[in-house]
């Protein structure tokens, strides 16, 4: 056994570094996977040995997925986890490693990783040809000079141009496209920004790729409540769980991945009896100054811009009491009142979501068979949901003004605080066709 074989054998017992693409209907499953001590979800494909492709991915994302695969170092393998969707047309569909409905996902991923390290599974060749998207016309030893160095897109990358900055100077500005698999954003979210150093000059979020009608999403309690009455307890437990999942993701964004795992564990095992645990968590986060340090004054949206948009915790954090539950007799019986804050910034959204998570658990515990929904509109965890009407679509128009002038870290915090979900747009868009099929 050579040194390399010995190292590979030793490495086979390591925590498997996985870059996970959580497509449609897979975010919860992938988040739970991260709780296993045998798997580590890494932020960069350069750090991964396993590419996990879970759930549905629209065809628009297949080419970026291939590029992501090719950005992984050897040895590498792909594990396909369809979760009921069709992976047949994906560029990685030839992968022999697949998690079936009866497989235990952590075991399947670690088995694939060990097979890769031991040589039982060969490393995967690149999917895309290693050629430049645009011909390089540089002349110097580092590609400098020549036509196309300014104003062009050599290698498919826009070059920095001069532009005005906030101090009245003209500095280099660089257009960038972040996503669709940036680890701090949900899969499918593409942020087009123009940056001057660490400063966002312009930013806009592209339309959801999930809205093209290709997808038959799984039906969660909120979508089901659009067309039929659903128990309040079920809806509120799902809302609390979503708020805690959001908190877990936001903690990772703020550099606290270990604390995020604690919150995620709570989200997975959540029951209506956990309201006091959620309140204790909220107190602890305030004690550690997490909302204040990361979000005070960041991503503030004025209430007049939000009026009528019904963006759930985002609206309520700005002092608007817009909540479809307030007009629902089932909730009136339970003594529901919307929770509001004043500041309208990322810190206020932390406060509102954590308070709402505890409130939802208390409502779920008090509910005695009350049902809600069936009227075509429901208060989802991100705001009002209706057929072809999702909070993601309504938020998009606010984002350019919100992002302009923020440091990159604040821009990511601001976007994370909005809990954008491109998948939700596809979920409500697909609803009528599912009804027709029924």
């Amino acid at each position, binding site marked *: 056994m050579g040194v390399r074989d010995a190292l590979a054998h030793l490495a086979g017992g*390591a925590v498997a570094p996985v870059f996970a693409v959580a497509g449609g209907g897979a975010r919860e499953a992938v988040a739970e996977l991260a709780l296993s*001590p045998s798997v580590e979800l890494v932020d960069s494909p350069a750090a991964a040995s396993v590419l996990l492709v879970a759930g549905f991915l629209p065809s628009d994302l297949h080419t970026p997925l291939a590029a992501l695969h090719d950005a992984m170092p050897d040895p590498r393998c792909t594990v396909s986890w369809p979760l009921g969707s069709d992976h047949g047309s994906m560029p990685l569909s030839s992968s022999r490693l697949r998690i079936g409905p009866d497989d235990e996902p952590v075991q399947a991923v670690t088995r694939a990783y060990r097979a890769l390290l031991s040589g039982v599974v060969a490393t995967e060749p690149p999917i895309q040809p290693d050629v430049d998207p645009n011909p390089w016309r540089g002349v110097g030893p580092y590609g400098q000079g020549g036509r196309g160095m300014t104003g062009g897109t050599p290698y498919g990358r826009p070059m920095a141009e001069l532009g005005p900055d906030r101090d009245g100077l003209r500095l280099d500005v660089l257009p960038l496209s972040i996503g669709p698999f940036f680890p701090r954003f949900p899969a499918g979210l593409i942020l087009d920004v123009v940056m001057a150093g660490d400063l966002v000059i312009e930013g806009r979020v592209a339309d959801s790729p999930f809205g093209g009608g290709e997808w038959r999403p799984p039906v969660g309690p909120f979508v089901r409540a659009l067309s039929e009455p659903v128990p309040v307890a079920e809806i509120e437990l799902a809302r609390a769980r979503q708020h805690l999942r959001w908190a877990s993701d936001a903690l990772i964004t703020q550099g606290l991945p270990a*604390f995020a795992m604690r919150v995620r564990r709570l989200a997975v095992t959540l029951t209506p009896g956990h309201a006091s645990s959620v309140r204790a968590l909220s107190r602890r986060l305030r004690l550690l100054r997490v909302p204040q340090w990361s979000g005070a004054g960041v991503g503030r949206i004025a209430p007049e811009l939000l009026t009528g948009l019904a963006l759930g915790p985002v609206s309520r954090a700005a002092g608007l009491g817009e909540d479809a539950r307030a007009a629902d007799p089932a909730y009136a019986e339970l003594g529901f009142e919307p929770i509001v804050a004043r500041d309208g910034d990322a810190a206020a959204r932390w406060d509102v979501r954590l308070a709402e998570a505890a409130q939802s658990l208390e409502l779920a515990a008090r509910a005695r068979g009350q049902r809600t929904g069936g009227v075509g509109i429901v208060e989802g965890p991100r705001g009002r949901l209706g057929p072809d009407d999702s909070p993601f679509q309504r938020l998009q128009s606010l984002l350019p003004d919100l992002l302009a002038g923020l440091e990159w870290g604040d821009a990511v915090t601001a976007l994370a605080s909005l809990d954008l979900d491109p998948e939700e747009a596809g979920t409500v868009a697909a609803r009528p066709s599912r009804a027709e099929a029924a």
Partner: protein
Amino acid sequence: MDYASPPIALIAVGLAMAAGVYLIAVLDRSIAVLVGAGRWTWRGAIVGPIRSAALLLVQRRRTTERPDSPGWTLAPALLTGLAAVALAMVPIGPDMAAADPSTGFVVFSAAIVFVMIAVFLHGWSPNSALAMHGAYRFGAQALSFQIPFLLAMLATALPAESLSIVDIVDAQEPLWNVVRQPLGLPLYLVVGVAVSFWGPLNLPDASDLAGGTSVEDSGVARLLWKSARAAMLVAVAAMGAAGFLGGWWGPWLPGPVWMVIKAVALLTLLLVAGHLLPRVRIQRFVVIAWVILIPLALVNIFVSGALLL
């Protein structure tokens, strides 16, 4: 004091760095498990770091489009070298130092200043937008922490009336600097975390940049960079123990044991803080450094100087 012979000094510093880096890996995993309410296992905490290192040794290095390859290769080596120089200046006993030049404080400070070059080079070289942003950030961070860091350190030289680290530790026999200069250690630790870009001040390699300057690293390059960062944290903690916690002074136990205990205690404190305190916004850190830390560091120096008059 005589210098140790170069081979022995080299081996001693190398071993100290390797032990420190491994200790950080073990402690960091253990703290992460405790904070995350996971299940701590010997295998995960003790053997896990070795297995993860083995994986990075097996993984092939990948490259990017038109990187600055020499710079990319050099950056982790430079940071490792700077950590080694900084650590070599820290004595663990009155007669146990890899090197104790009369200007040990200056050499340590010079190593800290050059960290900015290593991190900027590491972010610049891959020709990648997120890595470059990490490098920009560290430029702002380093320009802000260097003055308070040096001022906090400089105050420890006043009671010793010497720039030799051994003299600085010797001068703490009657009273440790942590008591004599109560502002010194907190200031040193805050800026020390910034120097080694760890925890709440890991801004160049932050999660909002998907890893920042190390986003494109794989294989051995990733292992070297992670090790170099950890080695720098070891150097910062060891110097903190020597400069503020009385170094080898302590009852009952041999001096070097006290030195190790104090360095590990500071290391643990920094690692725990890394898992509990959120990332500080760069804008806020720059303001805090210039408006609060530098004036406090100056007050610390003036008060220390006045007490000696």
